[in-house]
């Protein structure tokens, strides 16, 4: 090769190559620029509109509201997924469906009939929904066909493959046990807002937070792996663990409702409390709401009167006065008083017994068996008003219990300085003050538990998703009266159980039981008393090793306006509690205390 030729040749070709490269580059860049302008400017709107639906999908991740559980883990309130069926009325029209027999045309009427057959509506009803939506707005794109249908209906409608049907998730609350503990659990509104009971009281534990996540999807709608972005984290609610035994709760409600209907009572309550722990094992109300069907119950009956209503307790309260006097040492089991029919104390007041009798020489045992107001007054006046007031406070009277139930009543206990003589005496036998069923139960729990009052517990705590239980409720007891005073009071109540005029009605063979009846006038809502009575029975068993307190109240049982009405309820519920928890009778003999002197 001639050297110079080569040199000049390569120089020329290099120049050409550079030129060619520049030209090609220029062309490529030009093509790119044209394409860029086309995409970014000319077709920008169309493309971004197209991409909006395709590029990324934002979806709500529903957090589950926590469950409310019984002490055995039974679900009293749970969350389930329900579906709303919606339609696009403006798109509702004929469509084709591919079946085994080929494609067939489906008219709107046919489709409506098919939907109705699944949802339990008629085809005409669904056509009416479409028509009324279009009448309101000719371009209507949304109307509800059915709300909160279950998975079966959701699937069945989905299988119809109707193009203008859409589904919306709607997490809902379900109460598998119906009215069992419905009074305590409460309910939520259609929109899921808590309305009553623990649903409100424990909402801070139960509430969940919905999350949002976005993901990219392909043209065919398939989620692109690894494209999920969690915009906000979903937080499930915690589970509220209650102390309620579902089975016993049902039994108490059943027995209470049965007796309330038989005696014509306006309402009633049963409280079952565990002596050693203060746990509420059952709190029955009659009438009681079925949270699955709230509108089936009168608004006034949708809560729990055991927590929210207070009444004059009547004679069941005499146990408190007796325990206080015994604890102070002012009297013993052998101390006697003379109980007249009518007692007019020096400081004022007028105390009568419920039925006429001659003067009786009664011990404290005799006073409680006879349920003598005058006898009780003579024991009660051994203490000053302040002393008795302080005992009442320590027993929990006039204070909201620790149960933490929403809108719980504290009852009324006026300061002792404001007591007139009649009130001062009336408070000795359960008048002139009001208590809730829970406070009465707590009073008997204290006596049964050697004089130590346990906090009333309805909720064990809030169980988080990781299994830890938070917000545990307090469980440390406080001594109210000495163990000796508690045992003496228990012995007296056992004598009452054996010798009361309702002894046959509340007898639990084989067991030693301590119990007391009560009959109190009820307010008429106008500052006076109505003709009706609140009749009650409270007690505990086995008396030699107390396990359970049962407290029964019936309001105005018109067909049987005495303590004989609640006594069988006490007998049945107490038997069931003893049987269920295998409280074996010890067989030790009951004490025998003198009633007279």
């Amino acid at each position, binding site marked *: 090769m001639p*050297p110079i030729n*080569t*040199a*000049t040749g*390569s*120089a020329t070709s290099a120049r050409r190559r550079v030129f060619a490269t520049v030209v090609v580059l220029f062309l490529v860049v030009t093509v790119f620029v044209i394409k860029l302008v086309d995409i970014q400017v000319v077709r920008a709107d169309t493309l971004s509109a197209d991409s909006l639906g395709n590029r990324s999908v934002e979806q709500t991740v529903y957090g589950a509201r926590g469950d409310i559980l019984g002490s055995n883990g*039974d*679900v009293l309130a*749970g969350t*389930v*997924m329900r579906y709303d069926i919606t339609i696009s009325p403006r798109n509702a029209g004929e469509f084709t469906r591919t079946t085994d027999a080929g494609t067939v045309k489906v008219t709107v009427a046919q489709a409506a009939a098919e939907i109705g057959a699944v949802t339990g509506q008629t085809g005409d009803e669904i056509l009416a929904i479409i028509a009324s939506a279009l009448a309101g707005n000719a371009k209507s794109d949304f109307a509800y066909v059915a709300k909160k249908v*279950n*998975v*079966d209906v959701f*699937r*069945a409608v989905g299988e119809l493959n109707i193009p203008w049907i859409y589904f919306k998730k709607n997490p809902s609350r*379900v*109460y*598998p*046990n*119906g*009215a*069992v503990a419905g009074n305590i659990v409460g309910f939520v509104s259609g929109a899921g807002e808590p309305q009553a009971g623990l649903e409100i009281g424990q909402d801070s534990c139960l509430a969940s937070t919905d999350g949002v996540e976005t993901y990219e999807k*392909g043209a065919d709608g*398939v*989620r*692109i*792996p690894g494209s999920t972005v969690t915009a906000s984290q979903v937080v499930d609610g915690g589970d509220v663990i209650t102390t309620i035994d*579902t*089975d016993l*709760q*049902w*039994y108490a*409600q*059943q*027995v209470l*409702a*049965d*007796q309330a*209907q038989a005696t014509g009572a306006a309402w009633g309550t049963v409280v079952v409390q565990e002596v050693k722990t203060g746990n509420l094992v059952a709190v029955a109300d009659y009438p*009681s709401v*079925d949270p*699955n*069907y709230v509108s*089936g119950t009168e608004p006034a009956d949708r809560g729990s009167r055991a927590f929210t209503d207070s009444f004059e307790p009547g004679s069941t309260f005499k146990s408190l006065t007796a325990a206080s006097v015994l604890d102070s040492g002012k009297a013993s089991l052998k101390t006697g008083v003379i109980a007249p029919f009518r007692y007019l104390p020096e400081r004022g007041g007028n105390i009568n017994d419920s039925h006429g009798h001659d003067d009786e020489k009664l011990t404290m045992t005799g006073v409680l068996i006879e349920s003598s107001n005058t006898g009780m007054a003579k024991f009660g006046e051994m203490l000053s008003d302040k002393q008795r007031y302080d005992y009442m406070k320590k027993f929990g009277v006039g204070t909201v219990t620790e149960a933490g139930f929403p809108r719980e009543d504290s009852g009324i206990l006026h300061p002792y300085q404001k007591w007139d003589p009649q009130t001062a005496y009336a408070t000795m036998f359960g008048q002139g003050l009001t208590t809730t069923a829970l406070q009465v139960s707590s009073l008997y729990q204290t006596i049964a538990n050697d004089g130590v009052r346990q906090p009333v517990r309805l909720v064990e705590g809030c169980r988080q998703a990781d299994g830890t239980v938070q917000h545990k409720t307090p469980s440390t007891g406080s001594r109210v009266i000495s163990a000796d005073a508690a045992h003496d009071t228990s012995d007296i109540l056992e004598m009452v159980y054996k010798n009361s005029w309702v002894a046959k009605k509340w007898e*639990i*063979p*084989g*067991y030693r039981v301590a119990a007391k009846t009560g009959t109190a006038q009820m307010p008429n809502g106008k500052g006076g008393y109505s003709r009706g009575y609140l009749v009650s029975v409270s007690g505990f068993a086995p008396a030699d090793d107390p396990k359970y307190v049962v407290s029964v109240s019936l309001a105005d049982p018109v067909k049987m306006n005495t303590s004989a009405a609640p006594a069988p309820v006490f*007998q*049945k519920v107490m*038997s*069931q509690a*003893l*049987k269920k928890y*295998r409280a*074996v*009778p*010890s*067989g030790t003999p009951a004490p025998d205390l003198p009633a007279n002197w």
Partner: protein
Amino acid sequence: MSQNLARAFQPEEHDLWSPVAPAERRHIEAVLPRDQRKARPRIIYALTASAGMAAIVIAQLLLSVGISQGAYEISTLQASQVELGRTAESLSEDLVKVSSPQNLAANAAALGMVSNSNPAYLRLSDGAVLGAPGAAAGTPEARSGAAGLVPNALLAGVPLVTDLPPAGAQGTGISGKGANGRAADAPATPAAAPAPAPAAPPSGLPSPTTH
């Protein structure tokens, strides 16, 4: 080749005498062949690099094919997981519902069971009887009152065991549940003939002949 080298020096001499720009370029061009000689083995490197890139591209392609294949599989599996989750939720809902005390008590009563409110115990160590045993009263009152005093709206339409067709007549409950779990909700009317109340339980439980 040696000629080439010799000539390569010539322009350099020219360069000394008449420094012309083209000559300088020629001088640079002349070095190239030497580089070329060195570059020849580097083709292997180029090939290796190209092959590597090709391999990477192919691998990437296969990987994304694999991933998108996986995406479809994941998508299918997720869809079936959702469906199965719904089925599981629906079934456990049914289970919890029929486990409610109302349902159990109603079924027990339908089978003729009564609650005994006289608890008594037998202590095995010495055979002692604790409590006061007594026969349960078979009266309606002993059956803890009328049914349905504690309502449960969810139990509407749930049949009692005594109303169910005998096992075997309609297949087992589980296989009958296969289709959307709807089979059990619809009490099969043909076999639900009004059975006499104290009839033997249809589930094949041994019926007592003595009382």
